[in-house]
């Protein structure tokens, strides 16, 4: 029934005045009639099809809802963001720290997020502390350096200083959350 509520064009405007009641009644009548399983003759089918076609043409969308053009380069500005911004890490991943605190027990706890671009294998890195890596999206994303891939999705753990490879085999960005446990400055 949605096709009956098409947008108005100028040539139709004259038909629109004070006809709401009739339109409403007819809409309900058509709905009741057509909601039943009835055998339509060839004439009726063709006639109805032609009229529906006219309706569609008359009510054609007056705006273009196809995807928008790409933004002009000069319009690129800094992104608005609520959380901390990502920075490009030396490995090539995008990384940000969401939380970092000293536990008071000789180690710090840091929660990081990282994004590995699609189909990218990034340089191996090692972190100062032990790390638990939670894969949020993507596949084959965190593995000891030298291994082909890890199970994904996965929660993986790596000892302090162990080389860590980030490989995103998927066509979409891979998001990781890293929980890093490092010796605090006072305990070093």
């Amino acid at each position, binding site marked *: *029934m*949605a096709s*009956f*509520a*098409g947008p*108005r*064009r100028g040539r139709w405007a004259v*038909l*629109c005045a004070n006809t*709401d*009641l*009739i*339109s*409403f*009644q*007819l*809409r309900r009548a*058509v*709905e*009741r009639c057509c*909601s*039943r399983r*009835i*055998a*339509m*003759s060839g*004439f*009726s089918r063709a006639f*109805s099809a032609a*009229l529906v076609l*006219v309706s569609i043409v*008359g009510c054609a*969308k*007056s*705006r*273009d809802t*196809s*995807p*928008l053009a790409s*933004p002009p380069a000069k*319009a690129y500005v*800094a*992104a*608005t*963001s609520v*959380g*901390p*911004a*990502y920075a*490009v890490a030396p490995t090539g991943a995008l990384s940000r720290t969401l939380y970092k605190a000293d536990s008071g027990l000789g180690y710090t706890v840091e929660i990081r*997020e990282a*994004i590995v*671009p*699609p189909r990218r294998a990034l340089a191996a890195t090692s972190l100062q502390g032990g790390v638990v890596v939670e894969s949020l*999206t993507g596949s084959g994303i965190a593995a000891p350096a030298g291994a082909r891939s890890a199970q994904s999705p996965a929660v993986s753990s790596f000892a302090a200083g162990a080389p860590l490879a980030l490989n995103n085999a*998927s066509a*979409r*960005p*891979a998001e990781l*959350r890293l929980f890093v446990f490092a010796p605090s400055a006072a305990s070093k």
Partner: protein
Amino acid sequence: MNRVFRARACALAIVALVAIATSACETWGDFRNDQSRTGNQNVSDALSDPSRVGRLHVVWKFHPAGAIGFTASPMVPFNGNVYIGNGDGVFYAVDASTGAEKWHYPARGALTSRFTCNPSSYGIASSATMTFIGLTPVVIFAAPDQSIGTGLGEGRLFALNANNGNEVWKSPVLAHITGLTFGSVTEKHEQIGYSSPLIYGSEVYVGIGNHCDNPIQWGRVVAVNLADGSIDGSFSFADGLRPGNASPPGGDVWGSVAEGGGALYVTTGNQNDGNAEPSPSRGLSMLRLDATSGAVAWQKQPVPYALDGDPDWSATPSYAQTSCGNLILSTEKDGWTWAMRDSGAPAWVFPSDNPSWINGFTPKDGTVHGDSRYIRPGAAWGDVYVTMDGGEDTMSNVSQGEHRLHALNVCAPDSSRVRWMLDVPDASAFGDPSLGPPTITNGMVFVGTDQGHLIVIADPSISKVPPSRYRCTKDGISNANCAASGFQVVPEPNVLANIALDGAIVGEPAIARHNVYVATGAGSLYMLDP
């Protein structure tokens, strides 16, 4: 009546209808404007004119004595009235031009429940709809009623003469309440709540939900006969039962039933209460139902029972006719938006970080499906769907989208799914939720906020001023690093009007008679004119 005669009569009715089809554009006659629940109004007037919509201003305000918050949305049919029910249990007819009250129902007392826990349960929570019974214009709405059954405020439908508020019929009890003990699994705690009635053919359909999950109930869609309000026993849709009936199965129907292509579409709430899964398991799903029998034609259940963290699928689905075919669109409470085809095949899911998600989520896939607040229906406009969803932050910060609109290109590939996105101004960062359902007219989007602002946003294709900002679809990534990281740089559309009203706006702005009608949580109904 001879079948061929009926078919020809039907065709002739279509002729007349085509001739005046556009007149229906003047009205807002159902929740989301039409039975397909598109939230779309195809009128080319000042409301869709970027150079004129900025003049939008309040013409009148209707604030009935004793009114509490409106959760229902105004309905503006052909007859010059606005119809809306209030949380205080009174249903109002108001002159659409002046804001003067025409009548209210009931004349004395109110339609309320004794089981109250949130705004869905106080009084009249959902929008009304309009039809004719014979030659009588009739307005139909759902409400609790303490004058029937157990006297606790069981839910039923009311049909009133739209001209004077006289009763035409009242249905039997449709939503049962047999006790007031929170959490009881032996008492029935059903309600109609936010589900607006759908009139299709000779039936009226409405969904049955629960009171604040205390506990979840037995999700159903019921049909009553339009002529007299009696229950149509030949229609049946309900969640399956648990082994041994250990507890109510859930699958509550919070949203409104949508119609498209002669079928019904419905979404369902959660089921996992720690007992065994119901069989058949109809919860957390979008379903296509046969309009005559209620039989399930297909079901999409992205979140399996094991991952049920209460991500009710409560947003009313939209049946959209697009250049890539008919799509049924809806956002689940966990933040993912789904597009389904008539056949039941999934067209896409957004976000789509893992290709396997299109087939549904699986335990240990890393996804989380909880009680976040994506409960509003979106608006469908051509090949665009405007919705509140989690976007690219769904996996890392799911609540980030609760004050944000995404416009999605429904026929585009995943790589260009997002058309634009906007953190809506004067909406709380983490509301409950922060936005009402958006409505749209020729690319102009109207949405209310929990801080009581009516915001008007221009799709970049209609804005006479290019977007002043572009942003990455993933929070926190600069535009320079965005595309290389696998995300999109998209416009932030221009806000053309921002009008402060007197309370939170949880319902939809109704676009009719070249005006905007919107109700607030402070108990006021407004008419605004550009």
